[in-house]
């Protein structure tokens, strides 16, 4: 414990005793600095003769006290330090371990906006270039055998498709229940409950089946694609593929794109079926029997409604997989950037799904 002893106009004695270790040094250090600044114009003697043991933090304390700039005649002197401990106090200049100067001045707001915009543009350009690469690889795959690794396609499809069945069933079912209930309550007031069947059928088949499945798919599979490929990038697996003269798009991306295009429509059909079933269950509560529901449904929706949903699903699947893979390949270095890639894959995918869905709606209805 430092015990400052003011003696006439002579040196101030600061005693360090016992153990000075990481767990104990905090208050000692604070007190020592306080003494140093209180007696800024008097010499300071640090009495280390009763110091038993120190660790790296104690060494840093002694180094700090010794090398603080002081006015002439007010130097800090360390006395009685055991030679074995003295040998540990480094003799480099304090500047060697000084805080590094900030290299760049902070950016102005216009400059920052400009940088952000140019980053976004560059990202869009990279995405386009990536889509070009994918298309080229796909074309090549049609012309030559053996380009597509079907084993990989199957395993991705199993993970992204089969394992997603429970959650798609749950969400599809609840979605059907919810919209049937909400529309049903309103329609009841007008005595038009039977038309809820039309509403549920069209909404589920054309829009919600594909949309909800796509959102689940983006969260489950898009993120997984980005994280898997991102980790491979960070581990230099992608570099290994490149230096074998192979194309990472063909190896990592194509199987995922194909699997997604195959699996998304299947999942959507499942969501459609359970969604409509959920609607039927609710409407049974509104006194519309299953047979009546079925007959009315056949009149209300056609095969084209179903096909619109399925085609959308395939396009959504392609989009999600492409974005996930692109984000994965664009991963920087380190585990943090893998997380960023996965997040950005999900967010970008969902934005694109909604935008594309808008396109589809306008396109089909005009």
């Amino acid at each position, binding site marked *: 414990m430092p015990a400052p002893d003011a003696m006439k106009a002579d040196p101030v004695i600061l005693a360090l005793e016992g153990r000075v270790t990481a*767990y104990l040094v905090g208050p000692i250090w604070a007190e020592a600095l306080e003494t140093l600044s209180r007696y800024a114009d008097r010499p300071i003697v640090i009495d280390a003769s009763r110091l038993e043991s120190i*660790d790296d933090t104690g060494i840093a304390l002694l180094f700090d006290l010794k090398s603080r700039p002081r006015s002439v005649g007010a130097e800090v002197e360390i006395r009685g330090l055991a030679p074995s401990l003295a040998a*540990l106090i480094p003799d480099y200049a304090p500047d*060697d371990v000084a805080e590094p100067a900030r290299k760049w001045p902070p950016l102005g707001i216009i400059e920052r906006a400009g940088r952000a915009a140019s980053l976004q543009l560059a990202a869009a350009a990279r995405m386009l270039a990536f889509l070009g690469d994918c298309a080229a690889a796909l074309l090549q795959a049609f012309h030559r055998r053996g380009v597509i690794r079907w084993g990989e396609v199957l395993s991705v499809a199993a993970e992204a498709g089969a394992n997603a069945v429970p959650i798609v069933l749950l969400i599809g079912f609840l979605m059907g229940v919810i919209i049937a209930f909400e529309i049903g309550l309103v329609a009841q007031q007008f005595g038009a409950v039977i038309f809820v069947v039309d509403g549920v059928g069209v909404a589920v088949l054309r829009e919600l089946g594909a949309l909800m499945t796509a959102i689940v798919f983006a969260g489950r599979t898009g993120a997984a694609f980005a994280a898997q490929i991102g980790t491979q990038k960070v581990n230099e697996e992608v570099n290994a593929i490149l230096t074998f003269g192979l194309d990472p798009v063909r190896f990592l991306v194509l199987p995922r794109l194909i699997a997604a295009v195959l699996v998304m429509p299947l999942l959507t059909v499942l969501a459609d079926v359970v969604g409509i079933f959920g609607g039927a269950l609710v409407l049974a509560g509104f006194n519309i029997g299953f047979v009546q529901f079925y007959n009315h449904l056949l009149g209300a929706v056609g095969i084209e409604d179903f096909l619109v949903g399925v085609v959308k699903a395939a396009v959504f699947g392609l989009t999600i997989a492409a974005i996930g893979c692109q984000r994965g390949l664009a991963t920087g270095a*380190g585990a*943090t950037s893998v997380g960023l890639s996965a997040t950005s894959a999900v967010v970008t995918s969902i934005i694109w799904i909604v935008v594309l869905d808008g396109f589809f709606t306008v396109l089909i209805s005009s």
Partner: protein
Amino acid sequence: MERPAVSAQAQTTPAVSVRDLKVGYGSRVLLEGASFDVQRGEILVILGASGCGKSSLMKNMIGLYRPMAGDVLIGGESIVRAGPTEKARLQRGLGITYQSGALFGSLTVLENIRFPLDEFTDIGLEQKNLIARMLLHQVEMVEAQSRMPAELSGGMLKRAGIARAMALGAEILMLDEPSAGLDPITAANLDRTILALRDNLGLTFVVVTHELQSILKVADRAVMLDATSRSIIAEGVPSELRDHSQDARVRQFFNRRPDAPETEVRR
């Protein structure tokens, strides 16, 4: 502020004591019946071919994995049978580096070194920064202090990992291949640092390494593992093992000769 109990123990108890340890994964046994002590202030190296279980042994010794059988005492206290709080306290008394560096990817190098100080001490920020920079200086890494781990080379990651392991002033340091991937000069400086810390602070070191030169220079004692016999095949002073071991495998290792040599290379 509690501090690790390691130092409170009588000076005669070994810093680390491995008792009849059995190490493995699932049903696969890597090492059986391993027993050795590490005395306070001793530098012990663990040797053995790649894949024979050195890192696994170390992970069992630091309480990361539970051994299949046997016990590990840190300063006389079992880390195997310790409850969660006890175990955390024992582990905090160890300075540990991992083969890959194991820096936290979201923190800069300086913040990585400061991390244990931030978590467990009440030292002021500026002071912690000074401590961290001095530790980095010791491993010649001050220039890289504001970089992120992802921007470092393998050897740099390792050096920063060593600096972090020393931050809390642990009295027992467990280093997994600290000098693999370092250039000879940096590796030699690291050896010098290890010796200085042992000589002046009385720290204890358990080091996994393959660097013959460094083994002969720093190690007081070596323990050699073998994959086929799943046991410790040699224990002793490295230079004596090199010159007088009866075991061909040990001589092969020390003489860098894959084919059992009869003549010995003396340096």
